[in-house]
Structures are given as structure tokens and as C-alpha cells.
């Protein structure tokens, strides 16, 4: 029979793995919708986007993005993650409308 020490090790290791797995998946969000407006400030970019799913306006940040052409009104497919209560863009695909 397993002793308390072994049980606690197994429980903590599996708990850490489960939590890491949940946090990695929970942290990533797929958002799509029309860009209402956007601001370029050097390498940082802020996009206000109306979500196609629920109509809510989402503010998305990109810390190290290249200057973008005018994307106002364009349909965007975005993969983002949370960081300090901000949604940070990881991937972005621009569709025409």
C-alpha cells in the first residue's frame, strides 16, 4: 500500500500537470470580427474589434507588431492570450471584409 508521502507526491505532480494544461488552454482565446478602429504607436498596436460571436467590442493589444495598413472594417481572425488583464495578440489573419 502506498504511503502518505508517495500519495502526496503523485497528487501534487498530477495536479501541477493538470493545472499547467488547463492554464495553457484557458489562456488562449480565438476571436473573430470586424475591426472598428486601430492605433499604431511605434511597435505597439491597439485594435478595437466587434466580436462576430456576441457583438461585444474587444480591445486587443500587440506589443511587438509591425506597422499595419488600414484595417478598419476588415474581418480579423485573432488568436490571443491574457496577460495582466490584457488580451495580447499572438496570431492575426486579415480577411477582406
Amino acid at each position, binding site marked *: 500500500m502506498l504511503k502518505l508521502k508517495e500519495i502526496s507526491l503523485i497528487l501534487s505532480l498530477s495536479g*501541477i500537470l493538470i493545472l499547467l494544461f488547463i492554464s495553457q488552454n484557458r489562456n488562449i482565446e480565438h476571436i473573430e470580427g470586424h475591426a472598428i478602429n486601430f492605433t499604431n504607436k511605434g511597435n505597439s498596436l491597439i485594435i478595437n474589434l466587434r466580436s462576430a460571436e456576441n457583438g461585444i467590442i474587444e480591445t486587443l493589444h500587440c506589443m511587438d507588431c509591425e506597422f499595419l495598413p488600414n484595417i478598419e472594417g476588415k474581418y480579423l481572425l485573432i488568436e490571443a492570450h491574457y496577460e495582466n488583464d490584457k488580451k495580447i495578440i499572438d496570431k492575426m489573419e486579415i480577411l477582406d471584409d
Partner: protein
Amino acid sequence: MIEIILGLLLGIFVGTITGLIPGIHINLVGGIAVSSAAVLSGLSPIGAVAFIVSISITHTFIDFIPSIFLGSSNEETGLSVLPGHEFLKRGRAQEAIALTVIGGLIGLIILIILTPLFIFILPRVYTYFNNVMFFILIFISLFMIFIQERKFLAFIIFMMAGFLGIASFQLQINQPLLPLLTGLFGGSSVFLSIIHKVKIPKQKKIPLRNLIRNKKDYLESAGAIALSSPLVSFLPGLGSGQAAIIGSTFIEENNRKNFMVLLGGINTLVMGLSFVVLYSIGKARSGSAVFISSLLENMSLNNLWMILVVTIISGILAAFLSLKLSGIFSRIIVRISYRIISVIVMLFLISLIFFISGPLGLIIFITSTALGIFTSLSEIRKTNLMGSIMLQTILYYTPF
């Protein structure tokens, strides 16, 4: 003036209650207090500031009582659970509380000494410390691991706690520190008390004058408090937990008395200095400082003096209250089965975590409790569990 006195007295009352509730973190208390318009609506901004300062300082004195008597903890008191419990099992819990109180009072004296330095020097050196913090943290972490006999296991536990901390913060739940640190330090100790049927002996009453005689030891603790607390009070991502690790490297190994003084001092000093830092560089480094900054748009030097006076008065009053309450707890604790108390505390912590952090908080709590139990049974120092905060802080300060 009357409003300040009213805020101060109200703060001492509320801070005593929150301090006695197991597992409650001061940031949580401040949030509840500020959002409670009923409490603050009758007070002017300056009265409300006195209220927040008084709650915070009182809480830093009182929250050692549930840590030592019940084995529950939070970020500030986490490391006190194990040595505190040893004092309790030897019938010396009151002495342990008195030592944290002495530490808190030493913290107040150091606060007065450091305030002018923080006002004049901190704005000039702030950036420099920010740049070297990564190396300081790496050094402390390695030091913590290498002073132990079973270095590899200590390293593994440090890393496991680190990954657990990173996952907990990435989950975006409310108050992730609550289930994380409560499990690592409090939950695991309470669980072991239930399993091992801990019997609490009659608690001895140790005259305060016996404790005050030992001035040389206090000087060592005071030095450790003064060296460890300032650094964490102005840099982001650091707190009392890291200060305790840094401070413990300055005091003699296995000197539990000095360690309790150190924890008491750090707890109060870090809180007090966060108010000075808010004035000095305009950065809020504690939950309470955030609330003060929202009440005072431009903090003046006069505001700071008022805050310091409230800090000192509430600290002195809280010290007396803490000693009185520890006497009451000492008498009660031996009359009730400690196993029943432990079960009640455990159920309370589970309910609190579920209510505040939700179901994911419970998974963190179960995992962190299991890791805390494994660490205790492996006879590895629980300071290594501070890897839960240290690892992500190191990543935060990584310069490359």
C-alpha cells in the same frame, strides 16, 4: 482630526477581526473595505486613508495568531506556520506571538529610521535595483537550495512549487495566492495535524520582561529586517515572502526565536514602507497602497506624516491586542480537541477558497496541500515552497 481618530479606531477593530480569520490576506480585506461604501461613506478621504492604514497595520500584527494556533497561513505568515507550530507543541505559543509582536515593534522603529532615506534616496536608486534584481533573486534561490542536505530534492520541490505558481497565476482566477499559499503552508500543516492527532500541551505564560532581556538576538533580527524589507517594498512582484527568505539568510540557522521576530518585523515594515514608497516614487506596492492612491490623488508630505502617525499608533495598540488575544487563545486551545479545531479550520479554508477563487481554486488548493505534505514528510525546509512566487518573479525580472 476626529475623522482620523475615528478611522484609526474603526481600522483597529476591523483589522483585528480580519487578522483572526484564517487564511485572509490583507489585499482581500482592503478590497472589501474600499468597496464597502457603507463603511467609508461617513468618512472624508483622509479619514478613509486612516481607516485603510489602521486595518492594514493591525492585520499584520494579529494574523500571526491563526497561523501559530491553527496552522493556517497566507503570504505574509506562511513561513511562520512550521516554527510557530513547534512553539505551540512545546506549550510556548504565547512566546511565539510575543516574538512576532516584538518584531512588529522593531519594524515600526526601523520604519521611522528608513523613511527619510526612502524619501531622499529611493527616487535616485530605484532603476538601478530594478536592473540587478534578477541576479539577486537567482542568488537567493540557489542559496536556499544549497544550504540543505538533500539538495536535489530541494531543487525539485522548488521547481514544482514554481510551476504550480506559474500555472495558478495563468488561470486568471480571483486571488490565486489564496489557494496557492494556503495549501502550501496552511492546508498541509492542518492536514498533518488531523492525521497525526496532534496533542496540544498546556500553554505556558512567559513574562514579557524575560523576552526583552535578550537584546543581542533582537539586534541580529533587527539587522535582518532592515536589510531584507526595503528591497521588496519598492520593487514590483516582491513581498514579505521573499523578504523572509532574504532575511533568514542573515540570521543564525535553527534560531526559531529570531526567525519569529524576523517575520513579525518584515510583515509590519513592508506594509509601512509601501506607504512611504507611494509618496517617494508614486508607485503602489501593496493592495492597501493601491486603495490609498485611489483616495488621495496627489499625496502630500503632510498626508505621509499623518499616515506614519496612524501606522505607529495602530501598531502599538495592535501589539497590546495581539498579546491579550494570544493569552485568550492559549487558554481556549487546550480545552478543545485540536483535531476538531483542525477539521473546522480545514472546512473553513475549503469553503473560503471555493467562494473566492472558485472550483479551479480548489484544484490549486488540493495540489498545493499535497506538495506541502510531501515537503514536510521529506524533511525539506518549507522555504523552498516559496519557489511558487520566486520562479515567476525571476522570470519577470529576466533581462534577456
